[in-house]
Structures are given as structure tokens and as C-alpha cells.
């Protein structure tokens, strides 16, 4: 998927318009457009945030994302500082964007 194809699926803020159209290729294209490389550690977060959405129908804010990571991968990865290091911007927003989920509510 090239950048133009990926961007045609997004809203003005870069979030996916139709949640069913998400694919790993889309996530890779979005990250590439940001000049951001998705490592195995990033994919763990993206998978976790997608599972969170499946379960609760919400894009998580920082605290529940940290908790979900902690439950799945243990306390070392269930820390906000770990997520902040992985993602340059706000981890819940950036991960939700790559994961094809709505922008988290209550973003202040």
C-alpha cells in the first residue's frame, strides 16, 4: 500500500474513517509516511490496543493502555515511561492511529 492509498482512507487528523479497512499494510504505510519504524515492541502495543478496543469498544487512554500492556506483557512493559519511549507523540493517540482505531476520548 502506498502513501496515497493509505491517506485516502483517513480523516483530517489521520485516523481511519472505516474501522473495518484496517490492515497491517495500512499501519506500515502510515508509519512510513511519518518516517517511523514499527519494531516488534511497537506491534505489541498496536495488538494490545486493538484487543482493548475489541473487548471494550473504546480506544484506551494512557492509564488503561498501561494496564493492558502490564496484564499481557508484564510490569516492565506495563509502564508509561516504556510507552513514551516507544512512541514519540502521545502513545494512546499514535498507537490508535496505526491500529486503525478512533481517536481516544478525553484527550486533553
Amino acid at each position, binding site marked *: 500500500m502506498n502513501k496515497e492509498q493509505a491517506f485516502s482512507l483517513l480523516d483530517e487528523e489521520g485516523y481511519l474513517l472505516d474501522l473495518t479497512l484496517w490492515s497491517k499494510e495500512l499501519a506500515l504505510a502510515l508509519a512510513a509516511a511519518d518516517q517511523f519504524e514499527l519494531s516488534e515492541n511497537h506491534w505489541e502495543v498496536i495488538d494490545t490496543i486493538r484487543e*482493548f478496543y475489541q473487548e471494550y469498544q*473504546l480506544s484506551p487512554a494512557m492509564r488503561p493502555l498501561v494496564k493492558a500492556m502490564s496484564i499481557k506483557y508484564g510490569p516492565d512493559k506495563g509502564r508509561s515511561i516504556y510507552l513514551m519511549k516507544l512512541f514519540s507523540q502521545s502513545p494512546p493517540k499514535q498507537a490508535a492511529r496505526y491500529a486503525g482505531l478512533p481517536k481516544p476520548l478525553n484527550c486533553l
Partner: protein
Amino acid sequence: MQSSSLTEPSLLATNMKKNILLIVRNPPFANSSNAETLDIAFACAAFDLPVSLLFLNDGILQLANNQQSNLLEKKDLTNNFRALAMYDIEDYFVIAEDAQRYQLTQNDLILNCKIINKDKMAALIRTFDTVINL
């Protein structure tokens, strides 16, 4: 009536954490108040405010399991309510008399609630600094 004392300093010490009680009184699909109360809970959690929820009167019906809101083309609020625990909000109360009226037991509820008798409700409410009852 006493007049208010304007010379009294603000009662709130800077780092004192207020605990908040959110009362949910409406049944599912009634209006937006249940969803909007839930959103207050999430916002307070982001500010580390301790939040508890009291599902009063028809509010207990919001917790009934096996709801299929998709039949009404509505988003399922019960999934959202189950997310409260992920925001470290785990203090939920229902009133025994409400549960009895609707033949609900703990097993029928999506959250693990403390069931209290109606005559204990006032004492519970007194323990909170702020109550929001939409």
C-alpha cells in the same frame, strides 16, 4: 441562616484528593446521561481522582448482562462500563431493593458490585466529597 463566611480560606488543600460518587439512575437507551456519566468517570480517572459509582433505581438495569444493543443499532455501553476496571475504577454499588425489584442477582450483572441495603445508602453517600447525579 448563617451568612457565608467570606474570610474563610478555601477549604481545599492543594494536594487533597476528593473522592467522587457518580450516580447512574437511568435504564439503558433512555437518554445520554448514562454514557455521559461514564465519560466523567474516565476523565476523573485521568486526573487520579478516586471515583465510585452507585447504580440507583433503574440504573441497575444498565448492568444487566446479555444486552444486545446492536439490535437497536446502538453502541454497547456495557462494554464501555466493563472498561472502568482498566481505569482503576472498581468501586461499584447497587441497592438490594432495586436488585430484588428487577429480579437481578450478582450473576446477572456485568460488574462485580457491592450490594447494599437501601437504609445504608445515605451513609455511603455521606463518605464522598463530590456527588454528580445526572
